[in-house]
C-alpha cells in the first residue's frame, strides 16, 4: 500500500474481455458496474416495496400465486407478519445503501470525476476496483439473508437494539441480522475506499486551469459526499462492532438488566441477569450520527446533477455558483449537528432535543438558497425540453415538497404526534426516494451518451418521467394525511379486522389508493429498463457533445477511450457554465475555450 504503483499498474490498455469489462481498473467501467449493480438492487428493493404496498393496501387478501412463488413469506397465500417486517427492513436498507448511495455516488462519481476534473483515471485505480469487488459481496450477503435461518433481518433499517440484539426478539434477528451487519460492514469498507479515491482525485489530480472554483457543482457534491461518508461511517462501524459483540459474545453494550422476553426473564443459571448496564440509546446515537449525514450523501449528488442539467438545458449560467457551493458546504457541516431529530421522543435528554431542533431548522436555510438559485437560473432562460431537464425540474419540485415536511418534523414539539407515522414515510420518500432518485434518472439521461456512446430514446424517456412523476405524488403525498391522522409506520395491517385500531379504519381507503398508485409507479419503471437496455445496445450513436454542453467531459469522444482523452488532457480556461455568453459565436463556450469572454475566464 505504501507504493506509488497507481500509474504503473497496467502496461497497456487491457484487451481480454475479462480484464476489460470484469476486473477492470478503468474508472468508467467500474462506474458502470456500480451503476448496473445498483439498478438490479433497485429492481429487487422496488419489488419488495410492491409487496409492502399489497399488504398495507389489502391486508385481508390472499395471494395464492405469490404464495407459490415465495412460500417462505406466505402461508396459504397470506403474508406473514415476520415476512412483512423483513420486507420493509430490507427495502429500506437496500434502497438507502445499496441503491441510492451507490448509483449516484459510486456509479456516477466514478464515471464523472476524472472526466470532469480532467484526469486519466482515479488516483488509485486498483483501490477503486477493490472497492467494487468489496461492494458486490456486500450485496450478495444482504440478499442471501432472505434464504438463511429464519429469514432476513426484521428490525427495521435502523436496526434498533434490543430488537436487533436479542436473537429471540423477532424471527430474522438471528442469522439474518448477523448478515445484515456483515453486509453493512462490506458496504462501508467499499464506500470508504471509494471515498478515499474521490477526495484525493478531486483535490489532487485536476487538469491545468481546473481551479476549485471552476469545478462543476456535481464535483463539489462528490467532494462533500466523500467527506461526509468518511467522517460519519466510522461511527456506524463502531456501532456495528458493539452490536455484533452483544449478539454473539454476550456483552452488554446496548442491553440493560431486567430483560424479560416472552415472559421468560433473561437470567444466568445462577440467577443474575444475563445482561446489565447497557443502553439502547447508545446505538441510536451512533446510528444516526451516520444516518443523518447519510441522507445528505444521497441528496447532494442529486443537487449537483440538477444544477448541471438545469444550466445546460436552460442555456444559462447557473445562478449564484458561490452560494450554491456555500449552501452545499453548510448543509454538509450542519448535517453533523442534527442527528437527534430522529430521536425527539426516544427518551433523549430534552435539552439535547432543543439543540438538535435548532440546527435542524437552520438546515432549511441553505436548502432554500439552493431552491431559489435554481428558480433564478430558470428565470429568463431558454429551456430545451429534453428528458434530463424534466427530471431536473422534478428534483426541484420534489425537493421542495419533501423538504417542507422536514420543517414540520424539525419542530420538536410538532414531531411528537408525527414521529413514526406515515408522515415521516411521506417526508423521506418525497425527498429521498423522490428527489434523490429523480436526480439519478436525470443524470442517467444526461450522461448516458458519455457512458455508453449512444443516446437514450426521448419518447420513452419522457413517458417514463410523466408516469413516474404523477405516480410519485399520488403514492407519497397522501401518506401525509394518513400520517397526520396517526397511521403508524411499520405496521403489518391497519383497520379491521386484523390490526383493529378504530382510528385507522377510515384511512384504509386512502391506503388502497396509495397502493394502486404505487403499482402504477412500479410498473412505469419497466419503461426505464426497456429504454436503458435497448439504448445501451441499439440506441443511435452519440456525438462528442450531443447537448452542446460546456463541461470538460464533453470535449472527448463518447464513450471516452482508455485514458479519457486521446491526446493531451485539455487545459481549462473557464467555469463550466458559460451559456449564452454575449459576443460568443455559439450559445455555449466550452471550458477549454481560451477566449477571454464570459464569466471566470482567462487567468486564475
Amino acid at each position, binding site marked *: 500500500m505504501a507504493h*506509488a504503483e497507481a500509474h504503473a499498474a497496467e502496461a497497456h490498455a487491457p484487451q481480454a474481455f475479462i480484464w476489460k469489462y470484469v476486473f477492470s481498473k478503468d474508472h468508467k467501467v467500474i462506474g458502470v458496474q456500480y451503476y448496473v449493480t445498483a439498478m438490479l438492487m433497485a429492481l429487487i428493493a422496488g419489488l419488495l416495496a410492491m409487496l409492502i404496498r399489497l399488504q398495507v393496501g389489502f391486508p385481508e387478501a390472499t395471494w395464492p400465486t405469490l404464495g407459490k412463488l415465495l412460500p417462505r413469506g406466505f402461508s396459504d397465500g397470506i403474508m406473514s407478519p415476520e415476512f412483512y417486517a423483513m420486507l420493509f427492513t430490507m427495502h429500506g436498507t437496500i434502497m438507502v445503501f445499496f441503491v441510492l448511495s451507490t448509483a449516484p455516488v459510486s456509479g456516477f462519481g466514478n464515471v464523472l470525476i476524472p472526466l470532469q476534473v480532467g484526469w486519466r483515471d482515479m488516483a488509485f485505480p486498483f483501490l477503486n476496483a477493490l472497492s467494487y469487488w468489496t461492494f458486490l459481496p456486500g450485496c450478495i450477503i444482504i440478499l442471501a439473508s432472505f434464504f438463511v435461518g429464519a429469514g432476513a433481518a426484521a428490525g427495521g433499517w435502523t436496526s434498533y437494539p434490543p430488537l436487533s440484539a436479542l436473537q429471540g426478539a423477532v424471527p430474522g434477528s438471528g442469522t439474518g441480522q448477523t448478515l445484515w451487519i456483515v453486509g453493512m460492514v462490506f458496504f462501508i469498507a467499499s464506500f470508504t475506499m471509494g471515498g478515499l479515491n474521490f*477526495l484525493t482525485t478531486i483535490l489532487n489530480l485536476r487538469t491545468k486551469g481546473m481551479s476549485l472554483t471552476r469545478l462543476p457543482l456535481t464535483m463539489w457534491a462528490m467532494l462533500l459526499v466523500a467527506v461526509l461518508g468518511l467522517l460519519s461511517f466510522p*461511527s456506524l462501524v463502531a456501532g456495528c462492532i458493539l452490536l455484533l459483540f452483544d449478539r454473539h459474545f454476550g456483552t452488554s453494550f446496548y442491553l440493560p438488566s431486567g430483560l424479560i422476553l416472552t415472559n421468560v426473564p433473561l437470567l444466568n443459571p445462577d440467577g443474575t441477569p444475563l445482561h446489565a448496564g447497557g443502553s439502547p440509546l447508545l446505538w441510536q446515537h451512533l446510528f444516526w450520527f451516520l444516518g443523518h449525514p447519510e441522507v445528505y450523501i444521497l441528496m447532494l449528488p442529486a443537487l449537483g446533477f440538477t444544477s448541471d442539467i438545469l444550466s445546460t438545458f436552460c442555456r444559462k449560467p447557473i445562478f449564484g455558483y458561490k452560494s450554491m457551493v456555500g449552501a452545499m458546504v453548510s448543509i454538509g457541516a450542519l448535517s453533523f449537528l442534527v442527528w437527534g431529530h430522529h430521536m425527539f421522543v426516544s427518551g433523549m435528554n430534552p435539552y439535547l432535543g432543543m439543540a438538535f431542533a435548532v440546527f435542524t431548522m437552520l438546515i432549511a436555510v441553505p436548502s432554500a438558497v439552493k431552491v431559489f438559485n435554481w428558480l433564478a437560473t430558470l428565470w429568463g432562460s431558454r429551456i430545451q425540453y429534453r428528458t434530463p431537464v424534466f427530471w431536473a425540474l422534478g428534483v426541484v419540485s420534489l425537493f421542495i415538497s419533501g423538504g417542507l415536511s422536514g420543517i414540520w418534523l424539525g419542530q420538536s414539539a410538532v414531531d411528537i404526534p408525527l414521529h413514526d407515522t406515515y408522515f415521516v414515510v411521506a417526508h423521506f420518500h418525497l425527498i429521498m426516494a423522490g428527489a434523490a432518485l429523480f436526480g439519478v434518472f436525470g443524470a442517467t439521461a444526461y450522461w448516458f451518451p458519455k457512458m455508453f456512446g449512444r443516446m437514450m430514446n426521448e419518447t420513452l424517456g419522457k413517458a417514463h418521467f410523466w408516469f413516474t412523476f404523477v405516480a410519485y405524488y399520488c403514492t407519497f403525498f397522501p401518506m401525509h394525511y394518513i400520517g397526520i391522522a396517526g397511521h403508524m409506520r411499520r405496521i403489518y395491517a391497519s383497520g379491521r379486522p386484523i390490526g383493529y385500531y378504530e382510528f385507522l379504519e377510515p384511512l384504509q381507503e386512502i391506503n388502497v389508493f396509495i397502493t394502486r398508485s404505487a403499482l402504477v409507479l412500479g410498473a412505469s419503471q419497466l419503461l426505464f429498463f426497456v429504454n436503458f437496455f435497448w439504448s445501451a445496445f441499439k440506441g443511435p450513436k452519440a456525438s462528442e457533445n450531443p447537448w452542446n454542453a460546456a463541461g470538460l467531459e464533453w470535449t472527448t469522444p463518447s464513450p471516452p477511450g482508455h485514458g479519457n482523452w486521446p491526446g493531451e488532457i485539455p487545459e481549462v480556461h473557464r467555469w463550466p457554465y458559460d451559456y449564452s455568453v454575449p459576443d460568443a459565436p455559439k450559445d455555449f463556450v466550452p471550458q477549454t475555450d481560451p477566449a477571454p469572454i464570459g464569466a471566470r475566464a482567462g487567468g486564475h
Partner: protein
Amino acid sequence: MDHGAHAAVMESHWGGGVSPFAATWQKTMMWIFIVTDGLLFSGLLCGYGFLRMANTIPWPKQSAVFSIPFIALMTFILITSSATMGTAVGAARLGDRRTAVRFLWLTILGGAAFLGCQAYEWTHVIHDGARLYGPLSGSELAHLGVPRQFPAAFFILTGFHGSHVLSGLVILTITALRTGLGKTPAQGVEMAGLYWHFVDLVWVFIFTLFYLV
C-alpha cells in the same frame, strides 16, 4: 505498447491552481485514511465513555485491576518505536537506505514487543476473571464489583488497537524488506511511518482515557 508510452498516456501534470495540501495524492490519501480510521476509534471511545458515565455501578480504579507501571512500560515501548520510525523516515528521505532499514527493524522489534506485552496483559486480566460478558463470578474482578462494560470495553479497545499494531507490523515488515532491496521509495517509508505513528497516537488516547482517567 511499452511502459513509457503507457506512462505518456496516463500521466498528466498538476495544474488545478493551488494544490490544497501541497502533498502527493498518495500522502493525501494516507492522511484521509488516518482520519477515517481514527474516527472509528473515536466512535468506540465515545461508546465506552457513554457507558462508563451512564453506568450505575462505579467504574473500578484502574490501578486495582491493571499494573499501571506495566502499561507505562508498554507506552514507553510504543513511543520509542515511534521515534525509531521517525528516524527511519528521516533516513529514507536523506537517501540513507542502510540507516532506514536498520531503524525499520528496530521499530518492528518495538512493535512486536508491544504486542507481546499486550498478550501478557490479556492473559493476566483473563486470569483475573475478565470475560467479554463481564467479570467471571467468584473471580477477583467480580470481588472488585466492576461493571460488565469494563472488561468488554477493555477487550474491544485494546483488541482493535492491537489489531492495528499487527497490521502495522505487516506493513513495516514489507517496507523493511523492500527498502532493503531498494524497491520502496522514500515516500513509501514515510507512509508506512504515518500509519505507525497513527497507531501510537491512538494509544495515547486509549492510555489516557481508559487507563488513567
